[in-house]
């Protein structure tokens, strides 16, 4: 067997091992979800580490980055710096979360947390909150029998 053929054979073996590793890692992340961990941050760390490991497998072996020359750093370094800085720039937004309490959904969330059954609006009976024309016709019909 020529050395080229042996090399090709070993390539194939590497690819197959990487493929099996990717499948196992996928199964692991589904399993991590299935066991319902009590601490969500543990689950987050586990599955994002698994995702990173899978990404590294794909990039290093399937995309041949492991075997490429130094040009890969020249091309990928600026991209990765920009890609990382974008979520970091947004992270201050997450950190201060200054806008949360102003959303109508947040108010509604609070209201649902309180007992909805105790909801006792001060609005008048027949008070129309809807803005559709049908509502207006409806109230007009009530006033002019």
């Amino acid at each position, binding site marked *: 067997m020529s050395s080229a053929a042996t090399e090709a054979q070993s390539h194939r073996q590497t690819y197959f091992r990487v493929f099996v590793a990717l499948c196992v890692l996928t199964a692991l992340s589904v399993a991590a979800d299935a066991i319902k961990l009590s601490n969500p941050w543990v689950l987050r760390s586990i599955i994002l580490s698994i995702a990173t490991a899978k990404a590294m497998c794909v990039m290093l072996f399937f995309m041949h980055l492991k075997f490429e020359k130094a040009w890969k750093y020249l*091309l990928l370094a600026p991209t990765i710096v920009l890609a990382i800085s974008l979520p970091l720039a947004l992270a201050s937004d997450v950190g201060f979360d200054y806008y949360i309490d102003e959303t109508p959904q947040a108010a509604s969330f609070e209201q649902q947390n309180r007992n909805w059954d105790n909801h006792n609006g001060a609005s008048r009976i027949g008070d129309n909150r809807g803005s559709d024309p049908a509502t207006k016709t409806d109230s007009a019909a009530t006033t002019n029998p």
Partner: protein
Amino acid sequence: MTHTAPTPALRMGIPIPHGKLGMWLFLGTEIMFFTAIVGTYIVMRLGSRGWPTDVNVTYINVYLGGLNTFVLIVSSYFVVLAHDSMHDKNYFQARKFLWWTALLGVVFLGIKGIEYKGKFDHGILPGKIAETNRQAMTMMVDQLTNTYDRQLAALAPKGTPVADQATLLTAEMNRLSDKGDRSPADEARLAQLKAVAKLELAANNLRDHVRAEVTLELPQDQLNALRAQSMTDSAVTRPAAIKLEEVQHFIEDLHHDTELAPLVGHLHPITPMLYGNLFASNYFFMTGFHALHVVIGLILFGVVLVPGRLSASWSLYVENVGLYWHFVDLVWIFLFPLIYIVQW
């Protein structure tokens, strides 16, 4: 020997083919593109209290997502084998592996389509989701009213103005029920008209109660009396407020009514989903752009597969398509845990 192998022209820059350099630069921009989308999703999700994570509400199916992950990994493996076969000059085998890759891409889109269909069937679309109890109740009223309008239009003679449909059909119903000797056709028509009339009562009943925010336990006529009274007397005692569960049961009960069940076939109780619209926007934006990349990948595979036999001249093309396809797989590797698994 007069013939020597031509010396490659000396050139500046990175020692890889221009096509490959172009593909890598493109993938660099793609990394930033998807990082921006995923980063936005994370910001929105962490900044929203009460993000929908209940799979019975969001219809996120971790097993379908996992299956799709597997499908993409296998296709990624096949495309690397195709590239390897090109390198070995085994073009027949390379073509076979490329076909398998493309087929798996189609399978991925099929599973994605099943997921999208499930979302559409449950009304999970950006801007179409009720987020509060009030919105859910109003939405059920609207759907019931629309159903009534459609049934009315279906029974009325073609071309009847919408405003006259109800009057015309009421007259027909009264005429038929006064008629002494009804033929079987008359009986059937009368039953249809009666069912729609009953549907109108139900729709009006629900609408009035929801608009007035008064419990359905108060009968319609008493509600009408109360509303008339409240127009002049602001000190009227307010009855109990309507609850979401009441409206949901009202819609469910329509299906148990033998007369109405055939008319309200597709109506279903609505459960509000807080931040559901933001969730749906993010879900469809991320998975939609990924699916678009899969479609483009399939077109690129079509370019190499459709013309027929492969040859050495396709080597660089297959390598570049392979790089692109691995990137599509890479994006899914991150989307899968972030969308399907993480319960923040």
